[in-house]
C-alpha cells in the first residue's frame, strides 16, 4: 500500500469538510475520486499534501507517517500534485517551467555559480517531448492555451519523478478530445515511471475509461469504494451522484 489515510477530519468552523476519511491506495493503481461539488475532494488532497492541516487523523505514505510534514518535504518524498487551477510560472518560458522542476529534482537549487540557462537541458527536453510541448519551449507559460497549460503542469510535476501523482480535475475546462489526450498521456507516463495515480474528475466517461478503482465522496465522507462496475451498480452512489441519466 502506497498511501493510507486514517480517520482524516477537516473542520472549517462548524463545517466538516472532510469527515473520517479512510483511504487505501495500492501501488500502481489509478484511482478516481468522484463526488458532487463541495464534497471535500480537493480538501482531501490538501490534507494529504498538508496544504491545509487536518483537524485530526493521520496520513501514511509507504508506511511512514507524513501528516505533519511540510508540503515541500512531502513533495520531495515523491508525492506530485497538480492543482485544479494550473500553478505555473506564468511569466517564464515553458522550458524554464520544466527546468526549475528539474533543478529541484537534480539537487541544484543552491547552485549559485554555474550558468543556469542550459542547465539540465537534456532532462528538460525529455519531459517536453513526453508532454508534446517541444515546439512551445520558448513561449511564456501564461500565453499557452488552457489545455497546454494543463499539460505543462503535468510535465512539471512529472519532472520530479514522483511515485504518487495527485491530480485535481486534470481535464476540467478542456475539450473532451483534449481531455482524453491528457489522460492517455498521464496513463502512458504512469506505466513508464511505475506511478500510482489518484485523480479527481467530474467527467464520468473519463473516470470509467481510466480508473481501476473509484471512491465516491459526499458531504465529506467516502460513501463507496470499488471497481468501476461495482460503483456503477451501487444504489447509494446512483442516488447521490450519478443520477438517472449518467449511465
Amino acid at each position, binding site marked *: 500500500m502506497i498511501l493510507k489515510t486514517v480517520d482524516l477530519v477537516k473542520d472549517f468552523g462548524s463545517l466538516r469538510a472532510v469527515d473520517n476519511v479512510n483511504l487505501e491506495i495500492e501501488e500502481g493503481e489509478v484511482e478516481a475520486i468522484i463526488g458532487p461539488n463541495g464534497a471535500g475532494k*480537493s*480538501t482531501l488532497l490538501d490534507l494529504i*499534501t498538508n496544504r491545509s492541516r487536518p483537524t485530526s487523523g493521520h496520513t501514511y505514505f509507504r508506511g511512514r507517517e507524513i501528516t505533519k510534514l*511540510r*508540503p*515541500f*518535504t512531502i*513533495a*520531495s518524498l515523491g508525492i506530485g*500534485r497538480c*492543482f*485544479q*487551477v*494550473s*500553478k*505555473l*510560472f*506564468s*511569466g*517564464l518560458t515553458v522550458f*524554464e517551467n520544466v*527546468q*526549475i*522542476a528539474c*533543478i*529541484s*529534482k537534480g539537487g*541544484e*537549487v*543552491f*547552485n*549559485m*555559480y*554555474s*550558468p*543556469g*540557462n*542550459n*542547465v539540465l537541458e537534456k532532462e528538460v527536453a525529455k519531459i517536453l517531448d513526453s508532454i508534446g510541448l517541444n515546439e512551445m519551449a520558448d513561449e*511564456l507559460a*501564461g*500565453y499557452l492555451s*488552457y489545455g497546454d*497549460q494543463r499539460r505543462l503542469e503535468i510535465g*512539471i510535476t512529472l519532472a*520530479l519523478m514522483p511515485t504518487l501523482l495527485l491530480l485535481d*480535475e486534470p481535464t*476540467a*475546462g478542456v475539450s473532451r478530445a483534449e481531455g482524453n489526450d491528457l489522460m492517455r498521456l498521464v496513463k502512458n507516463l504512469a506505466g513508464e515511471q511505475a506511478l500510482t495515480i489518484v485523480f479527481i474528475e467530474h467527467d464520468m466517461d473519463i473516470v470509467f475509461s481510466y480508473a481501476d478503482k473509484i471512491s465516491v465522496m459526499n458531504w465529506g465522507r467516502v460513501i463507496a469504494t470499488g471497481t468501476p462496475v461495482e460503483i456503477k451498480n451501487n444504489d447509494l452512489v446512483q442516488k447521490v451522484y450519478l443520477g438517472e441519466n449518467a449511465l
Partner: protein
Amino acid sequence: MMQVLARNKSIGFGVITIVVLSILAVSLPVHRVELITRILIMALFATSINIQLGYGGMMPLGQAMFLGIGGYSFGLLLLKGGLPLTLAFFAGLLLSAVASGIIGFFCLRGDSMTFALLHLAFNILLATLANKWISLTGGSQGFIGIPRPSMFSSPLGFYFFVLVVVLICYVLIRMIVSSPFGKVTEGLRENEERICFLGIDNKKFQLVIFIISGLFTAVAGILWTMLQRGGFPTYMSLILSAEGLMMCLIGGMLSFLGPSLGATIVTIMSTVTSSYFQEWQGLLGIIIIGCVLGFRGGILGGRKIKIKLSPAGSDK
C-alpha cells in the same frame, strides 16, 4: 553557442562601460566625480534591492537599514573596535550577514504582506536605535573620521576604488541571478506555492535570497560611509528605502541593469535638479506614477510580462 555569445556581449558591454566611466572621471571636475561616485554606490544599492524585488518578487520596504547596518558595523569596528580598514570591511560584512539572517528569519514568518510590513518595522526600529543609542552610535550626529583606503584617498582615486568594488559585486550578482539558484528565484517570484510543491523549502530559499541581498546592500553602505567619511542615521531613513525601490521601478526591475539606470536618474535628480528645482521629489513622484500606470516594466522593460492565468474554475 548562444550563451557564449550572450556572455561575450555582456563582457563587451562591461568593458565599454568601464572605459566610458574612466574617461568621464578623468575629464570631469572634482565635484562631478563625486556625483558619479554617489551614482555608482546607489546603483549597487538598487541592484542589491532588485535581487529581492525584481528577481525574487519580494517587497523589501526598508532595505536602507542594511546600508546602515553595513556602514555602522564597519565604522564602529574601525573607530571603536580599532580594527584595521580591511579587517573592519570584512568583519562588517560578516556582522551584516548575521544581522540579515536574524532580521530575515523574523520577516519571513508570514506571507508577503507580513514580510513587507515587518521589513519596514525593522527599518524604523534600527533607525531609532541609531538615533537614540547615543553612546554607541553618536545619535543624530552620527560618527565621523572614517578614512578611505590610503591608496585611494583622493576623489579620483576613491572613485576608481568604488568602481572596482561595485564591478566585482555586479559580476557576482550577475553570476548568482543567472545560475540555477537564480532560475528558482524567478520561479519564486512567479509562483511561490508551486516552488513549495516542487519540493523546495520556499522560506529557507527566501532567507538565502534575503541574506545575499542584504550583504550587497551592506557593501554599498560601507562605500557610502567611506564617501561621506562618516556614518549618519540618515543612511537608514525610510526615504532612502523608498528611493531604492523607486530606482528599481523607474529603471525597470525585470532587467539586470534597470535599477542602475534608475539609480542614475534619481541620484542626478536629487543632487543636480534639486539645486534648480527644490521640489524635485514631487517630480520623482510624477515619474513613478507614470511608470506604474504607463509602462509597467520601467524604462528598460524586460521580456517578462505579468499576465493573468487562464480563467476556468476557482481555486479552492
